């Protein structure tokens, strides 16, 4: 189990990119009234075979040679330790969706602190993918969509200091409005 839920999200997204996904949707819902924290990562990658899906939560199981095979088991363990659960939906050619439910107020729930670092790493480390991020906290919602330049709206993602500054400022502003930085 990792110290911060944003690290789990980064790990799952890195797996999706490595598997060949080009569009990844990450959504985080914090609902204190219902005592619920919901994290969903869905991609348009190649999905999983029935056999891989059956074994995806087995520690050290991986379909790729060098990978450690601990990303999904860690997340499942983190969810189960604080009264939640993880579900996995995948089919060959139809992408994969990982949904984790946590009890928001559980004492053992890992914090969700550095989403900005996770999103910067994904967006600037993989300018070739489209990341759609939706974060709901109570009544407020922050949405961010990355894309490769040129494009009509939003900060362009590409090389260089100006891109880093644009994406970083946009994320910081949006997350601050949610009270998340």
């Amino acid at each position, binding site marked *: 189990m990792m110290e911060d839920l944003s690290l789990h999200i980064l*790990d799952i997204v890195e797996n999706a990119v490595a598997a060949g996904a080009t569009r990844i949707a990450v959504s985080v819902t914090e609902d204190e009234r219902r005592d619920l924290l919901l994290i969903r990562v869905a991609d348009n990658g190649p999905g999983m075979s029935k056999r891989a899906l059956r074994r995806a939560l087995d520690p050290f199981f991986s379909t790729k040679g060098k*990978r450690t095979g601990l990303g999904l088991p860690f997340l499942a363990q983190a969810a189960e330790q604080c009264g939640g659960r993880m579900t996995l939906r995948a089919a060959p050619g139809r992408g994969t969706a990982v949904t984790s439910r946590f009890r928001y107020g559980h004492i053992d729930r890992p914090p969700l602190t550095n989403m900005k670092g996770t999103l910067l790493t994904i967006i600037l480390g993989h300018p070739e993918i489209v990341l759609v991020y939706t974060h709901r906290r109570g009544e407020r919602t922050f949405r961010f969509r990355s894309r490769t330049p040129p494009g009509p709206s939003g900060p362009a993602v590409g090389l260089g200091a100006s891109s880093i500054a644009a994406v970083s400022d946009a994320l910081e502003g949006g997350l601050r409005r949610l009270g998340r930085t």
Partner: protein
Amino acid sequence: MAMPAKKSVVKKPAKPKAAKPKAKSAAKAAASEPIKKLRIQDLERIRDKARSLATIRNSEGRAKVTVHMGTCGIAAGARDIMDALLDEMRKRDVNDVIVTTSGCAGFCNREPMATVEIKDQPPVKYVDLTPDKIRKILAEHVLGGQIVAKCALAVGSETLY
């Protein structure tokens, strides 16, 4: 002469009977997981995607820094390395260095790791990184051309420090 012929007649039908259930289960498994056939349009899409990716990756950068972002790397602090690298690039107004991430490099006990590739030079793998070390590597190796030997594991795939 007649005995071997009789034996072979008895044995032969037994083998296909035993093999049949296996063949059926394999066929069922294959049917449940269909393999998608590639069409011409798919190939064109793959070509366009690879071409756009190559444009992003290769055209403008004089150097590429890959931060290894496997589960082991992330648990060891690779995201902090990436944060420090991007922050330093922003501060120094660096515009021609490509930053990317990859999976586990195979040395989980030496994470966080990064690989620096400069045009026409062999790649250098750096291990046991900290935010301060990656800032130094950006300044001295990526921008200055001098390998930071204290942090390096290997140059290319054979030379060890």
